[in-house]
């Protein structure tokens, strides 16, 4: 048996698993490729560097927020700094918005109490991140 990862042309891991060694090439469909790995991989944490021979590399972690609780007064700020450019932000909860951050810093304020989920996606080189901010 062998562990493998199937990846896209860009290097995103589409699925990972275990199969008989003789069947590894059968795991990839058209437009996909397969590589042997040392373990079953979490696609949120790993990608395939396709610039040369396929190489499994870790996706860089995105920065954590300055805090996970805030006052719902429209003034108290929760910040993320050092974000890659661009980073897609999807907010869900009492407010629902999606937008891109291009200056590396995200400051959020909240005008209504509740639990806000802030999802960050900066592309394949970085692990997607999800934080829950409780505004009170």
């Amino acid at each position, binding site marked *: 048996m062998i562990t493998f990862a199937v990846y896209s042309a860009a290097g995103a891991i589409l699925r990972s698993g275990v199969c008989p060694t003789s069947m590894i090439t059968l795991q990839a469909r058209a437009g996909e490729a397969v590589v042997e790995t040392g373990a079953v991989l979490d696609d949120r944490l790993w990608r395939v560097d396709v610039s040369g021979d396929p190489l499994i590399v870790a996706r860089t972690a995105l920065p954590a927020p300055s805090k996970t609780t805030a006052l719902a007064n429209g003034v108290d700020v929760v910040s993320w700094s050092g974000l890659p450019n661009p980073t897609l932000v999807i907010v869900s909860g009492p*407010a629902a918005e999606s937008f891109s951050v291009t200056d590396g810093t995200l400051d*959020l*304020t909240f005008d209504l109490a509740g639990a806000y989920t802030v999802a960050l996606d900066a592309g394949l080189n970085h692990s997607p991140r999800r934080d829950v901010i409780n505004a009170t």
Partner: protein
Amino acid sequence: MRRDLTARADARNLAALRADADVQQLLDASHAQIAAWVDAQVDAAPNTIAGLKAVIKRALRLQLRLMVVVLRRMT
């Protein structure tokens, strides 16, 4: 960049409903407690048709407000 998040209208309605003392009492109550609450409201009403109508209208308005908020969140 700074983003001042503005809550959706239905989230505001829901928050307002949750802040309503009657709704809070209902949300925290068991079915038996809700039945007892309705009985108490009816018993406390003046013994006239108008009094009973007022109780029924109040209960229906409360129920409709809850339904509208739930439907808006589902659609």
